[in-house]
C-alpha cells in the first residue's frame, strides 16, 4: 500500500517535471500514467500490491470529483443566466460524444474476427 502510493506519486511527479521541462501541453498525471504503463510493459506484469492499491483507488474514482463539483456553488449566477444554452450544450454534446465515439469504434473494429466477443467476455 505505502510502496504503491509512493510509486504512483513518483510517476506523477516525474510526469509533472517532464511536462514542465519540455514545455509539453500535456498534464503531468497523464504522462505519469504513460510512464507507469511503459514500466509495466518492461516488467511484463502487474505486481500484486499495485494491482490491489490501484483497484482500491479506482473503485472510488468518482469520489475524487466531488470537491470540484461543489464548485457549482460559485457559479450559480452565470448558470442561472445562461441555463438553457448550458444545459442543452452539455446534454447534447455529451450524448453525441459518447454515442459517436462508441459507434465509430464498433463499426471499425467489427472487421476484426473477435471484435464482438471481446476475447470471451460476455456481451449483452
Amino acid at each position: 500500500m505505502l510502496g504503491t502510493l509512493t510509486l504512483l506519486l513518483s510517476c506523477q511527479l516525474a510526469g509533472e517535471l517532464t511536462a514542465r521541462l519540455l514545455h509539453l501541453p500535456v498534464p503531468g498525471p497523464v504522462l505519469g500514467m504513460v510512464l507507469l504503463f511503459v514500466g509495466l510493459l518492461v516488467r511484463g506484469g502487474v505486481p500484486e500490491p499495485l494491482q490491489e492499491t490501484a483497484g482500491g483507488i479506482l473503485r472510488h474514482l468518482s469520489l475524487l470529483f466531488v470537491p470540484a463539483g461543489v464548485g457549482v456553488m460559485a457559479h450559480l449566477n452565470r448558470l442561472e443566466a445562461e441555463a438553457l444554452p448550458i444545459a442543452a450544450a452539455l446534454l447534447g454534446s455529451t450524448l453525441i460524444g459518447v454515442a459517436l465515439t462508441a459507434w465509430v469504434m464498433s463499426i471499425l473494429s467489427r472487421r476484426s474476427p473477435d471484435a464482438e466477443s471481446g476475447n470471451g467476455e460476455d456481451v449483452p
Partner: protein
Amino acid sequence: MSPDFHEIWVYLSASPLAGLTLTLVAYQAGMWVFERFGRRPALNPVMIAVLLIAATLMVAGIDYRTYFDGAQFVHFLLGPATVALAVPLYRQFQQVRRSAVALLVALLTGSAASALSAVAIAWALGASERTMLSLAPKSVTSPIAMGVSEQIGGLPSLTAVFVILTGIIAASFGSWVLNLVRVTDWRARGFGLGVAAHGIGTARALQVNEVAGAFAGLGMGLNGLVTAILLPVLYRLFFT
C-alpha cells in the same frame, strides 16, 4: 448560542477536517442511495454528494473556498488515480493493440465532436463567449480541462463544473444512448464513455465491466492528450 458552542463552530467552519469529513460522508450517502434504489444510473453518487454538500454549505453559510481547503486532500488524489489507470490499461493491452486504428479514428472523431457540438449548441442558443470557451474542453479530466480553459480564455473553475456535469450526464444517460445506437461491444462502450466523459464516465464503465473500464481509462487518457494539443489550435483558427 452558548460561548462553548460558538467556539466549536468557529473551529469547525475553519478547519480542513470538516470539509474533508463532509465530503466522505456525503459521498457515502450518495453511494447508499445509489445501491439502495437498485443502482439506477440517474441516481449518480457524485451528483447526490455534490447537492448534499452544496446545500449543507449554504445552510451553514460556509463559502466554497473554505470548504475546498479541506476537500482538496480528496481532490489531490485525482493525480495518483490518473496514474493508476495504467494498471487496467496494461491488463487490456493485447486488446488495445488489436484495435489501434479503430481507437485512433474513434478518438479523433469523438474528441472533435464533443468539443465542437458543445460550442455550436451553446452559440446557437445565445451563450456568452466566456461560457462557450469554458464549455469547449469539458470532456476531459478536470486538471487538463482547467488548464486548456485558461489557455483559450475560458473560466477554469466554471470549466471544472462543466466537466463534472458532463460526467454525471454520461454516467446517467450513457448506457441509454449506447443502447439506442446499438453498440454492444464492451470495448466501444467503454471507450465512448472515457473519451466523452473522462473519469466519471470511466468510473461508471468500471462499475459495469472490466474491459469497458480499461477502454474507458484509455479513452480518458488519450482524449486528455488530444484535447490539450488540439483545442488551443482550433481556438486560434476560429476565434482570432
